[in-house]
């Protein structure tokens, strides 16, 4: 394994700044790693070798001229293929956008480019981010680097596998109901869903607009924090973008302490439905936190019991509305019906039939139902009221504790094909611990909590809205305490991957 591959993003940044090595060397090492392992992992839909090396060379040149560069300049990054990249094919893992080359730039990619991070490529996902296994991609299978017979989670499965497979030191994902945190948990990496509005959604292909949030991912809390700082900030192009100043999340993660911190264990998110191995790993983390001076308190967030139901009405409703734009007229796939008249309406129906996968169709139909006359109040209206209850319950819980904690997911990574077509709810239940944060707009982070039967378990930290700093100030020292206690999940991974 190349010496560069195992380094953290901040280690790479330090080495680049001191001139110990060049961005071209670092970027080439990661591209080589992708070439050697991609057949196993399948993390990427598109690899952008030439573009990455051109950026790396440019950063190296600018550094040698003594230019003032961003702290992460020259550190490679992978982007989920839901992030629009001008001039580079952007698919959302859907056949309907198979050959779409965007004519405009997302704010996320603009910031990444401006800071000089070489983009290694676009990572695989469940089609339009709908799913939690990355099996719903029209562009092939992504495998979990821990065990190739298991899924990497989803929908940001490619982003997480690229990190765990040491193909990229940083990844950008998106999280609508847990799509960054759950794959991070399944791959032993760190995934952050910031407060809604912390990172601009301009140029992020929309799934459910009131829930979608861009998520920085890395192999350590500080790495994810550094990427969060790069991507965050107000954007006039996104009317839901927060005007808040961006805190120094890296410093908070590195200098925080658990001493005196109150960690609230959410009663509703532990116990029945959670694998014994997940519960054991979670409890072990609580013991480490307590030994480091944290106070562990059990708290009640009663409406969480209904959050899943509300989510699976609100999310498809917004999906059905957002995906109406794929009509085969202005961009993307167009398919003409094989029989009958060729009109705008029949072409739309044939295009959407051929372009969308089964899960996307299911959610569009479900959302259309929930929004239709006669059902709107009972379904969509009630779900929005539950959303209010979830927000209130979180606010009340945060009156007594600094952060709330839970396992990130009830299980470890599932085997391929575990999903039962006849019972979609069985898989949807996997989102039970993550989606409440999206309903409430609060930030959440998943960090490695050790292993259960050889697969990683995630530990989730939740903070109040616009208090992302609090999440880092707990997650950083918790990660350090776990490493001091001998739980270095990533070492296991690095050793396991050295062939």
């Amino acid at each position, binding site marked *: 394994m190349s010496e560069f591959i195992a380094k953290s993003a901040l280690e790479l940044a330090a080495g680049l700044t001191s001139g110990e090595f060049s961005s071209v060397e670092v970027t080439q090492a990661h591209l080589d790693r992708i070439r050697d392992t991609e057949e196993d992992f399948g993390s990427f839909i598109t690899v952008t070798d030439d573009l990455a090396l051109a950026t790396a060379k440019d950063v190296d040149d600018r550094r040698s001229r003594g230019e003032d560069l961003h702290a992460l300049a020259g550190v490679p990054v992978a982007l989920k293929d839901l992030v629009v990249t001008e001039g580079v094919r952007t698919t959302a893992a859907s056949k309907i956008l198979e050959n779409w080359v965007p004519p405009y730039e997302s704010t996320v990619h603009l910031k990444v480019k401006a800071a000089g991070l070489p983009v290694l490529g676009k990572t695989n996902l469940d089609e339009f981010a709908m799913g939690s296994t990355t099996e719903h991609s029209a562009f092939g299978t992504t495998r979990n680097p821990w065990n190739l017979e298991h899924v990497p989670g989803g929908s940001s499965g490619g982003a997480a596998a690229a990190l765990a497979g040491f193909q990229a030191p940083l990844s950008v994902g998106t999280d609508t109901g847990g799509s960054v945190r759950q794959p991070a948990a399944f791959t032993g990496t760190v995934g952050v869903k910031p407060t809604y509005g912390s990172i601009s959604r301009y140029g992020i292909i929309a799934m459910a607009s009131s829930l979608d949030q861009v998520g920085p991912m890395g192999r350590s809390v500080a790495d994810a924090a550094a990427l969060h700082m790069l991507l965050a900030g107000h954007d006039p192009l996104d009317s839901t973008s927060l005007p808040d100043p961006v805190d120094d999340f890296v410093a908070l993660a590195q200098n925080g302490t658990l001493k005196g911190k109150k960690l609230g264990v959410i009663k509703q998110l532990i116990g029945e439905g959670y694998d014994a191995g997940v519960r054991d790993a979670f409890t072990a983390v609580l013991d480490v936190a307590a030994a480091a001076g944290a106070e562990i308190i059990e708290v009640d967030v009663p409406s969480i019991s209904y959050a899943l139901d*509300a989510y*699976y009405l609100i999310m498809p409703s917004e999906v059905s509305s957002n995906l109406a734009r794929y009509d085969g007229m202005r961009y993307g796939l167009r398919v003409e019906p094989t029989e009958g008249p060729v009109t*705008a309406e029949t072409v739309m*129906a044939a295009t959407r039939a051929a372009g969308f996968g089964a899960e996307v*169709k299911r959610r569009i139909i*479900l959302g259309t139902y929930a929004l239709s006359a006669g059902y709107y109040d009972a379904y969509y209206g009630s779900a929005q009221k539950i959303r209010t209850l979830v927000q209130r319950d979180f606010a009340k819980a945060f009156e007594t504790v600094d952060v709330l904690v839970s396992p990130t997911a009830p299980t470890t990574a599932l085997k391929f094909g575990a999903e039962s077509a006849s019972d979609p709810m069985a898989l949807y239940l996997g989102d039970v611990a993550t989606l409440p944060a999206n309903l409430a707009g609060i930030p959440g982070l998943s960090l490695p909590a050790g292993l259960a039967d050889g697969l990683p378990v995630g530990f989730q930290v939740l903070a109040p809205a616009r208090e992302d700093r609090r999440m880092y100030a707990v997650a950083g020292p918790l990660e350090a305490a776990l490493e001091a206690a001998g739980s270095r999940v990533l070492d296991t991974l690095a050793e396991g991957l050295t062939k």
Partner: protein
Amino acid sequence: MTESSAITPEQVAHLASLSRIAMSEDELAALAGGLSTILENVARVNEVVGDDVPATSHPIALSNVLRPDEVGATLTSEQALAAAPAAADDKFLVPQILGEE
């Protein structure tokens, strides 16, 4: 509504038509089963909230802001049409929209 949340293939056909997605009989039947299962599970949402609970449509309370109405850079029509399935005379070319009669 909770007792009768089962969805028939005929209902799915109507929803598919509203959603502009062509579907085979097999797809309609499979979706009807899956949707019924989902709705049986989520239908209880209207049992737990009363009229006194306001609806939340947006997670963070922000007031709407308008920017100054200034002319800025936009895509050229060439750029906008570059990804179109069909274009002619500087415009999107679409199938027949209005009926013959």
